[in-house]
Every structure is written in structure tokens, then in C-alpha cells.
């Protein structure tokens, strides 16, 4: 799992999610199948599921939509305690939550099991424009450097007694942002000069790409394949 090449994994997860999103929610046993596949992959990959789950959330506005949907009037209605819920709305809400959760789980596994390096190599393999890959490579390379600078600026602010209190403190943050921009931009210029010094003329020597064997593709394909089987079974059995 960890040593599947980046693009194989990426395409496998994408294919899986396309199948998931295309499945009507009313075929609920199919979704049980999908969840089982995710759990299987998670087990195989030995990733710390709980720590991962913390970072991965569905963004607030979308969550609200999904939660409110059962309350939209229309169609059949049913009651749970004091609540009157629309059947159609509940199904739609469930649909959104289920698929988004599967998506988050999927992205989580992808993110946790893929190194930035194998992702970049994967970009090269699927023929992403070279400028795009280079930008991504530089971003990944300098994220820590700039983050450290940001932490240092924060420490400097706070060790001089700064406490963030509502919008009145915004100018302090924005001057930090401004300084962050200038530092990032100047860093970009210096990096460019350092590249020129070593004979750079626009083309980045291709990032070392991993060897992709047929075995990798087969492993990768298993993931969406199981989903497809689940999808087809669901279609045959529940329509």
C-alpha cells in the first residue's frame, strides 16, 4: 500500500470515489460494501485511523446542508419523536453524508500513505504540465521553511506581550502576512538565482520516477474493482 506508486494510488482512489458517487443511496447494502473495502484497506495499510480522522472533516456549510435536508418539506413525511421529517430529504441528507464521509476516508488514506515525493513523481507520470509539477515541488520543499519563519514571527509577537483580541488585532496579523509575502517572494528570487548559478534554463531535470510494474497496477486496480463488484451486485440484487 505504502509502496504503490503515487499516481497508481491516486487513480485507484479517484476511480473508487467516482463509482461511489455514482451509486444511488437507496442501494444501501452497496455502501456497506464500500465501507468494508475502506476498512480493509485501512487495516492493510496499518495507518493510525483515529489520529487521521482528526484532521479530516467535512466543511461546515456543506455539513449544514446535509443536516437540514430532512427538514425540507415535500414528499412523504414521517415522524421521529417530535420531529417531522421528509423521507426524500432524509435520503438526500444521508446520501451527502455517506458519500462525503467515504470521500474523506479515502482522501485520508491517500494522504497518509503517500509521501510528497511519490505524489510528485506520480504527477510526472500522468503527464501533468512540467511548470505545474515544479510549482508543487517548490511548494512542498519550502512549506517547512516558511512555516518555521511564521512560527518565529508568532513567538516574537507574543514574547512582546501581544494577545489576539478580536478584529482590533487584525493589523498585527496582516503585517505578519505582508512580511510573509515579502519573505516568500524574495526567497523565490534567491532560489531562482541559485538555480541559474547551476545552469538552470527552464527545464527541471525530471524528478526521479519510480518504476511501475504490472503488479503495482493490478494491486491498484483491485481497489476500484472491489467497488465495482459491490456496485454491480447491488444493482442486480436491489433493483
Amino acid at each position, binding site marked *: 500500500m505504502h509502496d504503490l506508486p503515487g499516481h497508481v494510488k491516486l487513480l485507484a482512489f479517484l476511480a473508487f470515489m467516482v463509482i461511489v458517487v455514482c451509486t444511488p443511496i437507496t442501494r444501501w447494502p452497496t455502501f456497506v460494501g464500500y465501507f468494508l473495502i475502506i476498512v480493509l484497506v485501512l487495516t492493510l495499510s496499518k495507518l493510525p485511523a483515529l489520529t487521521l480522522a482528526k484532521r479530516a472533516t467535512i466543511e461546515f456549510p456543506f455539513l449544514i446542508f446535509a443536516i437540514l435536508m430532512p427538514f425540507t418539506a415535500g414528499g412523504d413525511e414521517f415522524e421521529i419523536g417530535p420531529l417531522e421529517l421528509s423521507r426524500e430529504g432524509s435520503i438526500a441528507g444521508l446520501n451527502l453524508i455517506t458519500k462525503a464521509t467515504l470521500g474523506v476516508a479515502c482522501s485520508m488514506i491517500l494522504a497518509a500513505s503517500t509521501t*510528497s515525493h511519490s505524489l510528485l513523481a506520480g504527477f510526472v507520470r500522468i503527464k501533468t504540465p512540467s511548470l505545474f509539477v515544479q510549482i508543487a515541488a517548490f511548494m512542498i*520543499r519550502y512549506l517547512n521553511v516558511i512555516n518555521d519563519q511564521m512560527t518565529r514571527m508568532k513567538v516574537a509577537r507574543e514574547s512582546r506581550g501581544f494577545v489576539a483580541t478580536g478584529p482590533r488585532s487584525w493589523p498585527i496579523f496582516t503585517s505578519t502576512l505582508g512580511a510573509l509575502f515579502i519573505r516568500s517572494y524574495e526567497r523565490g528570487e534567491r532560489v531562482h538565482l541559485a538555480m541559474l*548559478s547551476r545552469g538552470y534554463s527552464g527545464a527541471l531535470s525530471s524528478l*526521479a520516477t519510480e518504476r511501475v510494474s504490472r503488479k503495482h497496477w493490478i494491486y491498484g486496480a483491485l481497489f476500484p474493482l472491489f467497488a465495482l463488484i459491490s456496485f454491480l451486485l447491488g444493482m442486480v440484487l436491489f433493483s
Partner: protein
Amino acid sequence: MTIKPSVQISNLHYAYPDGNKALNGVNLTIASKERVALLGPNGAGKTTLVMHLNGILSPTSGAISIADFTLDSSNKEITKKVRELVGIVFQDPDDQLFMPTVFEDVAFGPTNMGLTEGEIEERSVHALELVGMLSLKDRAPHHLSFGQRRRVAVATVLAMEPEILILDEPSSNLDPASRRELSEILLDLDVTILMVTHDLPYAFEICERSLILNQGQIVADDSTTSILRNSDLLTANRLELPRGFAI
């Protein structure tokens, strides 16, 4: 035809686009295989001078020759050739190490030189061995300590096998052991060296000749020993020997 590398600068002036005059008439000749220290206070123009030596900055007026080539910003061929001859190790290793792994970074220069894959591999491995970093070749630069990053930065330049090696404040922020290890590496190389530094004992250890740059002009050019003995000259240029250091 044998190339005889040396640096020749005559009457070099440079003003930054914002009008700041950083270099005001620099004249300088460095012979092949010489090791020269470039001293001077902050803001003297040392980094600006260094950036002229491989055509990254182009003089406002004046001329620069490297070996048999006279730099000319409109001549791409010469610029490319000069960048193969002159290797610059920049002040901040984070500027220099921009590739995802140490090995790819070291291979960046040789690749741009159009070498074969075998040669690229061989040179990169050799350069990493020289600085003692071969075992970390698959690491990401940001997972290295500062001293290790500085060493890799030196390797990225050594892999291009430059005839002239320029280092901008190489000993800054290094712990004593890394500092000594770097000087051992430098003393083992058989190339021309121009080293920018404030670290006078370091200059003394590595370079037989020293220059002092102040306000964009060379104000002293002599053997390192006699420059370091001239305490008035040092004081006038905001340079200081560490307490207790005597020559």
C-alpha cells in the same frame, strides 16, 4: 587548448535597480589555484560582487573575465560556460537546496551540464562522499540539520567540478566541529577559492591572501597574515579578531 582559470575584474560598478550603489569601482585579479578571503562589514557589497562572477548580476559598467571568457550578458553561450567554471555556494543553504531529495539536488547541476546519466551519478556520488553526506542521499533537505544542509550545498557545487569555487559566509551558523570539517574539505580541493567571511581565524586557516571590501571598493589586498596583524585597518572596517587570537 588548456584553460587557465582566473578572475579578472576591472573598474566594476554596480547599482541595484532601486538606485542603491553597491559596487563602486572594484579592481581585482585572482590567479589560478589561489585561495583568497573576501572580508568586509555587513552591506559592504560582498554578496553583490560574488553574484557578478557567474553573470547573475551584470555590471552597470566595467568588465569581468573568467579564465578566457569575458562575461557578456547578451551572450548565452559564454554565460553557460562561465557557470560551469564558477561554482557559488550561497549564504543560505535553503536557497540552494530546492529539490525534493539531497541526491536530486546534487545531480541538478551536472544534469544541466548535459552529462550522461552515468557521469551524473558518478559525480553526484563523489561530491556527496567528499562532504561525508552520501549516507543521507535520499533524505529531504528540510530533514537535515543546518550543518548538514551547508555540506550538501557545498556538494551541489562540487558535483559540477568548478575551476573556481566561491563560498558566501560558509562558516556562519556552523558548530565548531562542522566548521573544522568544512575547512578540511576546502583545503583538500585543488581549485581556486574565493571565500566571503567575517570569520577572521577561518580566513587565516584557509586563505593565504585576503581582500577587504568596504562601501563597494577594495580597500586592502594583502597576505592574510599582514592584514590580520594590522589592527587599525581591521577596526576601520568593523572587523575583529576573537579575543586571545594572535598570529
